[in-house]
C-alpha cells in the first residue's frame, strides 16, 4: 500500500493528543485499513500419536478458515457473519495477531502482524484493540477499573503520572460511566457496564481499528441497544474502524457498512449492507435471512432447508453448501465456485443469478 508510510508519519505526530486526526481520512472511500488476502488457518485435531498408531488413523486436519479475502475501509464497519464453525472468531484472532495464519496474510496499514518486527508489532498493537464477548471473563476481577483502563495508557507511554488518572476519567465518561467508577472493581458493575469498561480499555490506547468479537451477545436487548448506540457514537466521534464479528444478522443490519457471510471457513458473499439485505446473492445468505426471526413476522412460515452446518473436519466437496442448497447442480458438488460480481455483491456461487428469481 503506497499511502501507508505517510499515514504512519501522521499518526506519530499527534500520537499523544487524541485520535481526532483520523477523522479526516474518513471521507476517502478508497482508503483501506485492513487488507485480508488468502487467509487460511488449519488446526491439527488428530488424536495423540500412539492412539493414532493403535487405531490406524491418519491425521485429522480442521480447516477453520479457507482462503478468506476482504478489505476493511477506514472509518467503516465490516461485519463478518456466520453460524457456529464458520471460522469468524479465528479470523478475528488472526487480524489482531493472536494467531498466525497457515497461509495468506493480514495487512494493516501496510504491516503484516504475523511477519512484523518487534518494534513494528508494538506500534501496531497500539493501533488495534479488541472487545470480547464475555464482559465477565475479560476483565481482571482483582484490578480496579482505574488499573484496567489505565494499563494500555502506561503500556504505550501515552501519559504519565496524574495525567493517566485524568485520561481514565475522561475515557470512563466517554463510555457513559462516571469518574468515580475508577476506584471500583469489576464485580460492582452489571454486564452492560462491564462491557463499557471493556470499551474504555480498548479506547485507552487511542486505536484506529477495534475488532469486536460478539460484543453484545451476552447482554440483554435493552442493554445491547445502549452498547450498540455507544459504539456507533464512538465511531462517529473518533473515526474508528470496526471489524465486527457476530452470528446475529439483525445486529449487523444496524451496525455494518459492508458484510461478509462465512460458511464453514469460506467467505461466500461480501456486499454493502443494503444490497445484502434486499438482494442477497448467495443461497446461504438468503436462507440465513429467511431463518432470522422478525419482529413483524406473526405466524410466518420459514422456508428452511432442514439442514445443519456439517462437521467442519469433513466438509462436503465442491461448494460446502451444496448438500443444503435448493439450486445446486452437479458442478457445485465438484468445483468450488470462484468469487465474482453479481449485482452489488461479490459472491462465490455458480447459480447466483437463479437465486434472484426463485
Amino acid at each position, binding site marked *: 500500500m503506497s499511502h501507508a508510510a505517510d499515514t504512519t508519519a501522521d499518526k506519530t505526530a499527534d500520537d499523544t493528543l487524541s485520535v481526532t486526526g483520523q477523522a479526516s481520512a474518513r471521507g476517502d472511500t478508497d482508503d483501506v485499513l485492513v487488507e485480508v488476502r488468502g487467509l487460511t488457518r488449519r488446526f491439527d485435531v488428530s488424536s495423540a500419536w500412539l492412539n493414532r498408531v493403535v487405531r490406524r488413523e491418519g491425521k485429522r486436519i480442521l480447516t477453520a478458515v479457507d482462503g478468506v479475502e476482504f478489505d476493511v475501509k477506514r472509518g467503516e464497519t465490516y461485519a463478518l457473519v456466520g453460524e457456529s464453525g464458520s471460522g469468524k472468531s479465528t479470523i478475528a484472532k488472526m487480524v489482531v495477531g493472536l494467531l498466525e495464519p497457515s497461509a495468506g496474510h493480514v495487512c494493516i496499514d501496510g504491516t503484516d502482524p504475523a511477519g512484523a518486527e518487534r518494534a513494528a508489532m508494538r506500534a501496531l498493537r497500539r493501533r488495534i484493540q479488541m472487545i470480547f464477548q464475555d464482559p465477565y471473563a475479560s476483565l481482571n476481577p482483582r484490578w480496579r477499573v482505574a488499573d484496567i483502563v489505565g494499563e494500555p495508557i502506561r503500556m504505550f507511554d501515552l501519559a504519565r503520572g496524574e495525567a493517566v488518572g485524568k485520561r481514565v476519567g475522561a475515557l470512563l465518561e466517554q463510555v457513559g460511566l462516571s469518574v468515580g467508577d475508577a476506584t471500583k472493581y469489576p464485580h460492582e458493575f452489571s454486564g452492560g457496564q462491564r462491557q463499557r469498561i471493556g470499551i474504555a480499555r480498548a479506547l485507552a490506547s487511542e486505536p484506529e481499528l477495534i475488532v469486536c468479537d460478539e460484543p453484545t451477545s451476552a447482554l440483554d436487548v*435493552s442493554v445491547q441497544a445502549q452498547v450498540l448506540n455507544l459504539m456507533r457514537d464512538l465511531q462517529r466521534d473518533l473515526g474508528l474502524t470496526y471489524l465486527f464479528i457476530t452470528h446475529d444478522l439483525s445486529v449487523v*443490519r444496524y451496525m455494518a457498512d459492508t458484510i461478509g457471510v462465512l460458511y464453514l471457513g469460506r467467505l461466500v458473499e461480501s456486499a454493502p449492507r443494503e444490497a445484502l439485505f434486499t438482494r442477497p446473492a448467495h443461497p446461504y445468505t438468503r436462507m440465513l435471512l*429467511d431463518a432470522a426471526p*422478525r419482529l*413483524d413476522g406473526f405466524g410466518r412460515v420459514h422456508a428452511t432447508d432442514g439442514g*445443519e452446518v456439517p462437521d467442519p473436519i469433513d466438509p462436503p466437496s465442491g461448494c460446502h453448501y451444496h448438500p443444503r442448497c435448493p439450486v445446486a447442480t452437479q458442478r457445485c458438488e465438484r468445483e468450488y465456485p470462484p468469487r465474482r460480481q453479481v449485482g452489488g455483491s461479490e459472491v462465490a456461487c455458480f447459480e447466483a443469478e437463479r437465486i434472484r428469481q426463485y
Partner: protein
Amino acid sequence: MVGNATEADDDVLLRVHDLVVEIPTRHGTLRPVDRVGFTVRRGEILGVVGESGAGKSITGAAIIGLLDRPAHISGGSVTLAGTRIDGLSERELQRVRGARIGTVFQDPSTSLDPLKTIGDQLAETALAHLPITRREARERALQALVDVGIPAAAERLDAWPHQFSGGMRQRVVIALALIAEPELIIADEPTTALDVSVQAQVLTLLRRLCTDRGVGVMLVTHDMGVVAETTDRVAVLYAGRVAEIGPTRQVLTDAAHPYTRGLMGSTPDTSPDRDIGDRLVQIPGAMPGLTAVPAGCAFHPRCPSAMSICAMREPPVTVLGDTAVRCWLHEDL
C-alpha cells in the same frame, strides 16, 4: 393478573394465579416471582418474555415443582386441567412431570444421558409413564423420532447422544418431552443455544406439534422475534411481575406498557418492512436486582413516561380488551 377470567374453563389447560416465589436469605426475603398470573389453553403457545432477572425461568421451575431450595412457592396457585398441582408431594410431582407436563431446556446435552442410547432413553421414559410393554415402548420411541423429523430414525434409535448434532439433539429432547403424551410443554429458551437456521426448524416443529396434538406450550424466551413468529399470546415479565399480557400481535404492535415498547424499540430487526432508523431506542439503566426492586412500579426509574404516583404505589391491573396491563398510564387518576 386477570387476563382470561371469563373464558370457558375446559379450554384452559394451565392456570397460574397470583404465583409468588420467595427465597429467604439472611438479608431478608427475596421475591423473584411476584403475583404472576396467566393461562395456557390447549393448542396454544404462550410466550413468557423478559430479560435476565425478570423471573421467567423460575416461574417455569415453580410450575413443575423444580425450584432449588430454599426458593419456594409462598402464594398463589398452579392448576393443570382443573387440578391444583402446587403443593403436591415430590412423588406426586414426578408423576405429573413427564406424563402430563413435558419439559425442554436450553442446553440439549444436559437433558440427555450420555451413557444411554437415544432409543433406550425414549423407551424408558415411555415405560415410566404409560401402561405399555417394552416392545410397545420401543415402537413408540421410533415413532417419536419420526415425529420430530429425525432422518433415518430406525437406524438412529441405537445411536448415542454425542453422535447427534446440536439441532438433532434438541429434536430428541423434544421427542423425549412428548413421548408420554403430555398435555403441556414448558420450553425454557429451547433454541437459544442453536444456530439461527436450526432455531427456525425447531420452532416450526414445536408449532406443528402444538397444532396437531392440541398440546399447550409455555415458551420462555428473551427473543422478541421468536415471540412474534411462534406464540399466540405473550406475557411480558419485568422484575418478577407481569407487566403486560395479551394476544401477541396486539402486544407487539400496540404495546400498552412502556417497557414492552422499549423492548421492541431496542431490538434490532431484519424485517425488510421495518425501517431500522439511525438509532435503537434506549431504555436507560438495567433490570433491578432482587435485593433492590424499586417501590411502586418496578420499572419507574427507567420509564420515559413515569409520573409521581409510579414511585409510590404499584399500579393495579387494567384490562384493555384482550390485553391486561399494570401501568398507571391506563388508570383514570
